[in-house]
C-alpha cells in the first residue's frame, strides 16, 4: 500500500526468512518509483527469542547491501536512503527457560524432519499423539464397543463423513443414468484414491 502507508511490515516467517525479506526489499527499492518526500519505515517481524536485536538489523542490512552490490555506488546509496529500517519486533518468549524449550523443540523437529525424509512416515508426531489420545479415551470410556482405527486415524474432513452428501450432489448433476458408469464411477474412485494420501505425498513416486 506504499505510499498510502508509511509503515510497511514484513513477517519474516511468512515470507521464508530474513533472506527472502532482504530479497523483497531489494526488489522494491530497485523496481518501484520512489517518492522523495516519503521515507517509509520498514518493520521486520521475526519469530523466536533474540538476545541482541540489533544483530538482525545488521544482518538484514548486509543482505540488502549484498543484493544491491551489482548496482552503481550512487544508486545503492540513494536506494538505501529511501527507507528506514530501524524497528524490529519479536514474537515469542525471551527468557532463558523459554529459549531452551524452543531450542529443544527445534532440535526435535529437525531430527523428526530427517527421519520423515528417510523413512517417509506421512503423518507427524502431533497426529499420532492426537490419535493415541482418542484411542485411550475411547478404551477408557467404553472398552466393549467397536473402535475403527481406519476412521479415527484420519484427519477430520477425510473420514468420509461428508462423502455421502458430496456424492449425492454429483449424482444429482449428471444428465442421464448411463453417466453413472461413464462418469460418476471413474471420478468417485479417483477422488477416494486421491483422498487416501496425505497432503504432500502426492508426488512421491514408489520408485
Amino acid at each position, binding site marked *: 500500500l506504499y505510499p*498510502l502507508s508509511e509503515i510497511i511490515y514484513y513477517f519474516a516467517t511468512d515470507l521464508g526468512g530474513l533472506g527472502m525479506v532482504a530479497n523483497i526489499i531489494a526488489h522494491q527499492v530497485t523496481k518501484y518509483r520512489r517518492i522523495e518526500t516519503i521515507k517509509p519505515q520498514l518493520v521486520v517481524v521475526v519469530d523466536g527469542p533474540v538476545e541482541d536485536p540489533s544483530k538482525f538489523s545488521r544482518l538484514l542490512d548486509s543482505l540488502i547491501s549484498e543484493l544491491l552490490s551489482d548496482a552503481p555506488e550512487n544508486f545503492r546509496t540513494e536506494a538505501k536512503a529511501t527507507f528506514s529500517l530501524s524497528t524490529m519486533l519479536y514474537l515469542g518468549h525471551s527468557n532463558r527457560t523459554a529459549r531452551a524449550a524452543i531450542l529443544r523443540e527445534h532440535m526435535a523437529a529437525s531430527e523428526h524432519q530427517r527421519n520423515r525424509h528417510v523413512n517417509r512416515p506421512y503423518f507427524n508426531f502431533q497426529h499420532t499423539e492426537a490419535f493415541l489420545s482418542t484411542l485411550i479415551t475411547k478404551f477408557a470410556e467404553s472398552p466393549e464397543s467397536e473402535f475403527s482405527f481406519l476412521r479415527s486415524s484420519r484427519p477430520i474432513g477425510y473420514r468420509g463423513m461428508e462423502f455421502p452428501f458430496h456424492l449425492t450432489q454429483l*449424482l444429482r448433476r449428471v444428465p442421464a443414468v448411463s453417466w453413472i458408469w461413464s462418469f460418476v464411477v471413474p471420478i468417485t474412485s479417483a477422488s477416494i484414491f486421491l483422498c487416501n494420501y496425505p497432503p504432500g505425498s502426492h508426488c512421491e513416486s514408489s520408485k
Partner: protein
Amino acid sequence: VSPANNLENCAFQRRANSKPGFQADRVFEELYEQSILRAIKEYSVPQDELPTKFCRAIQDELSRLVSELRMDDTKSIYLRALRRVRSNALMVRTATSCTFCMHEFSERPLQCGHLICDTCLQIFGTSPAHSYSAVLEICPLCGVKQHCYFVSLLPPTTGYRLLSMDAGDTQAVAALTFLVNLETSLQQFRCPLWTQFDLVCIPIEG
C-alpha cells in the same frame, strides 16, 4: 484389537506407496461402502441391483488405481483417471462440493465452473511467489485453460482482515472513488483488493 491386521491399514503407519500391507478393499469397506450405498439408493427402486453394482464398480476401479502405484505417483495416476472422463466433464458442475476430492466444501469456482478446495489447489497448482499462494493453469478435470487464476492462501500468522471505512452521506463518493483508484493501482501486482480482506464494512446511505 481384532483382527490384528487392522493395524496394517492405519493411515499413520503407512510409509512409501509401495508398503505391501495396505489393502484398498479394506479401506473402501470401512470408510466408503455404506456412504456410497446410502447416496445411490435415492436413484434406485427396492430390489434393484444398481447400488451393489455401483459400489462394486467403484471398488474395482479403486483397486485398479492402487495397483498402478507400483509404477507411478498418486497425482499422475489421478490425473490420468480424470482424463478418461474429460469429454463429459464440462456438463457436470457441483454447487458446493470440491469436484476433485469430493471430501470438502468449496467456494472457489474455476473459470470452467468446477469448484476446487484449498487442499486440491495446493496439489494441482504451482506456487510462484511464496508458499501461501497458488496458480492453476488448467482445470485438472476438463482441461480448460485458466486465465490468471491466482489464489492467495492465508499464512499462519494472518488473523481476520477487516477493512472499515466511514462513508456516510456524500463521503460515499470519495470513499468509492478511493477504492476504485486503489483497485486500479493494485492491478499491476495482480492483487485485487477484495482478496486482501475477509470482511469489508462501509456504511453508505441509499
